[in-house]
């Protein structure tokens, strides 16, 4: 393990040095510009993209408490798919019609993006409804409520529903962490 770690670390350091050398070997002015763009990439991601995703996550709290775990997962999956397709579509939609020749960016990307997001919504809905039906059928055949856990099948996540309200939980954690450690 130690050998593997040191080998990985040493190889990483060598590659980093090569990368720095390649970056310094570019035409003058590039290094500063690239550093600026690297910082910009992190700023946009950490300061804009993730906070927006976290805000959406906050907005999903209500459905999360009301929906069974399976259904919440489907809803979140649908949003992840639609969001990823949107990111992929953005440069294409922005540059649509500005291709350098007719075979570059030849498609109607805004329409394609809208169709894909609509398709994702439909698939999400079908999965939500299908999951609900399956859960009900299972509940009826087994004569009780849908199973609480189970990695694959639909069912309520007992953990999520049984969890105490957030405020109480963090209060409990505070008292716990205030105790001296052994």
């Amino acid at each position, binding site marked *: *393990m130690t050998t593997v770690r*040191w080998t*990985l*670390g040493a190889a*990483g*350091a*060598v*590659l980093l040095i*090569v*990368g720095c050398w*390649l970056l310094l*070997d*570019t*035409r003058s002015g*590039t290094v500063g*510009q690239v550093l600026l*763009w*690297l910082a910009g*990439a*992190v700023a946009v*991601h*950490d300061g804009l993209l*993730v906070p927006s995703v*976290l805000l959406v996550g906050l907005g999903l709290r209500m459905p999360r408490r009301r929906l069974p775990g399976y259904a*919440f*997962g489907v809803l979140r999956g*649908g949003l*992840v*798919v639609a*969001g*990823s*397709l949107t*990111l*992929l*579509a953005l*440069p*294409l939609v922005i540059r649509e019609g500005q291709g*350098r020749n*007719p*075979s*570059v*960016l*030849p*498609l109607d*990307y805004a329409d*394609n*993006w809208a169709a*894909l997001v609509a398709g*994702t919504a439909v698939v999400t809905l079908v999965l939500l409804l299908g999951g609900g039906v399956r859960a009900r059928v299972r509940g009826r055949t087994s004569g009780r409520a849908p199973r609480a*856990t*189970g*990695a694959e099948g639909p*069912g309520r*996540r007992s*953990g999520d529903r049984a969890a105490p309200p957030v405020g109480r939980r*963090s209060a409990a*954690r*505070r008292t716990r962490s*205030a105790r*001296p450690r052994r």
Partner: protein
Amino acid sequence: MEGMEHPTPPGSDRSPGSHTAGPPAPRPPLAHFRGRLHDPRTATVLGRWLGLLVLLCFGTGLFSHLLQEPPAFLAGDLPTRPVWGYRLTQGLHVASGTAAIPLLLAKLWTVYPRLFVRPPVRGLRHALERLSVAVLVATALLEVFLGLLNTVQWYPWPYSFRSVHWALAWLLVGALLLHLAVQAPAITAHWRARSPGTRRLPADDEPNRRSLLRGVTAAVGAVTAVSVGQSLTPLRDLTLLAPRHPGHGTQGLPVNRTAAQAAIPPAELRDWRLRVAGPRTYQLTRVELARLPQHRARLPIACVEGWSKVADWEGVRLRDLLERSGAPPGARIRIVSLQRRGGYGVSELGESYARDPLTLLALRLNGEVLSADHGYPARLIAPNRPGALQTKWVSRIEVLS
């Protein structure tokens, strides 16, 4: 690493007050993440797929770079088989970069709370660790962004795409290996569902985690399915979000640079002659070229930007032209284009390409005379070679020493 070994979010138990009883330590303003799955098991599962994609992208990128700028000792021996080799590797390069978008963002979301770890720096070692993670995150984000925009031929930055994409790739993989070395204990502790670290995490997070991973997998599948058809032509009908489409382009083939973009002078086309400069220099008109033995080759044109398509080419074997000029074996060959604008007006061929029976000076494409945008009067087409080096509008072939 320490922050990742606790199921509780970082910040909640990292405060200085946690060691002594006393007034509760002030909570950092942003550091409280109540959401689930910001945990090392999720990071490990997402990370290993992302790591594989990054390594695949790096390997295929290295191969592409090697074909485009081979070191002198390799230049004569570059592989010409399989003929679809570059098509596959460069298709994989762009597809793996595209597929990395959802995975990278999911991975960074998982570890996002660690950005606010307190105290921000606990010593030199910790500072270096955080610096290497900053390099990793920044290069990963920018590298994917640059690559994606390059496939769209959109360059809103002031620097050269090629040299920066190349340098950042090394920084990215270097920082990745360093990250793996630093995080190795956390990774092994959470490698499997039954690994000791995983078992210390709340058990009821597992269905939630699987469901998140299914969502990310679906996203990876979706972005791949709607874009990979630009090189994986059987999926052309699904190609909704790719900058190229196999069905668009003159003579059944997309075009990267048109004759107008390359500023091909019409006057030089009118009395065009191919000039072969070697031990026995000669010139041929297009009619004379067409009278030489013609050969057919079914070869893909595969662009660095990821799109590719197979076509039927017809023309004169380059090696026949070279033999006629008395070129010595092992000679490097330089192909010069008429183009006046843009890069790649000159390309060089090592011996393996120059002597390959499939390397043609093509006069016809898919049964028709080459169109102006595909390189009329004559263009180079060679097996397993990046599209940018398949020089169009060839005017001169030079035998180098």
